[in-house]
């Protein structure tokens, strides 16, 4: 894997949550709430989620299968409009290897029955370690976990 490659891709995921806009936004803004749903698969070793929710603030979490590769997420928040949008840039590492950099936009819009969430990820996948298909699948899982968290 010594060859340098960079593959760009964009994916969009939309979800409807039957909850008030402010509640959905708070699930992103409140560190204790976000730590409950923004986590890897159940059998992964638990990781320490950190979130400083302000423009310029950082978010980080890491984890992985017991004894296996450590997946690390490190983000910086670039833009916040309360109850409307969050824009952050993040990179992912597998152990020491940086595998991707992404610009992630979360938009939340009110609907008669709750909130409509639009997640857009514009990413660059580096040196062939990951691709947009796997990332989209992982993000679908996270947004399902968000739905389950909102229902609790």
């Amino acid at each position, binding site marked *: 894997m010594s060859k340098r490659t*960079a593959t*760009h891709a964009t994916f969009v995921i939309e979800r409807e949550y039957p909850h008030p806009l402010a509640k959905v936004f708070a699930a992103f803004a409140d560190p204790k709430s976000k730590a409950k749903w923004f986590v890897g698969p159940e059998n992964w070793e638990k990781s320490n989620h950190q979130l400083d929710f302000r423009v310029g603030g950082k978010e980080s979490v890491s984890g992985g299968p017991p004894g296996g590769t450590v997946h690390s997420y490190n983000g910086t928040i670039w833009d916040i409009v309360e109850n409307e949008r969050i824009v952050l840039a993040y990179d992912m590492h597998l152990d020491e290897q940086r595998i991707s950099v992404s610009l992630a936009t979360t938009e939340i819009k009110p609907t008669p029955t709750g909130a409509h969430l639009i997640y857009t990820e514009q990413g660059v996948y580096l040196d062939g370690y990951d691709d947009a298909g796997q990332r989209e699948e992982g993000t679908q899982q996270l947004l399902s976990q968000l739905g389950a968290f909102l229902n609790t």
Partner: protein
Amino acid sequence: MTTIAHATIAMERTYAASAARVFAAWSDVEARKRWSAPADNIRIEYKAADFREGGKDVSRCIEPDNADYVATVTYIDIRKDHRIVFAEDVVHGNTRVSAALISMELTPKGAETRLALTMQIASFDEAGMEAGYQFGWNAALDNLAKEFVQ
């Protein structure tokens, strides 16, 4: 209700220079000051420049009517002579108008070097910043060729 316009813009150029020289024109802020202004009547002033992973650049782009845009760049991935990936946000007045993820890749082609620039942009001012990126970077990449004239 704000609306975000997402766009991806890709540009390519081939320069008569080695990958090391093209890379140096990006890593050296003095070189960047020469080629990054898109027009003679637009000035770029750097308030900070720190070319390393995690480092930040802060620059002001000042247009002839004195309108100014402040860009903050964070370098995320740097592979010397190969690529640079950075995130950038742009503030106009008191308003953040865009966030973007930008990557620059260099591929040697004999004595020349092909540069591929990909901008993944979220514009908060409808598609205004998308047009701004298109104009600004097209002109800057043309200017960059002048760095390599003997």
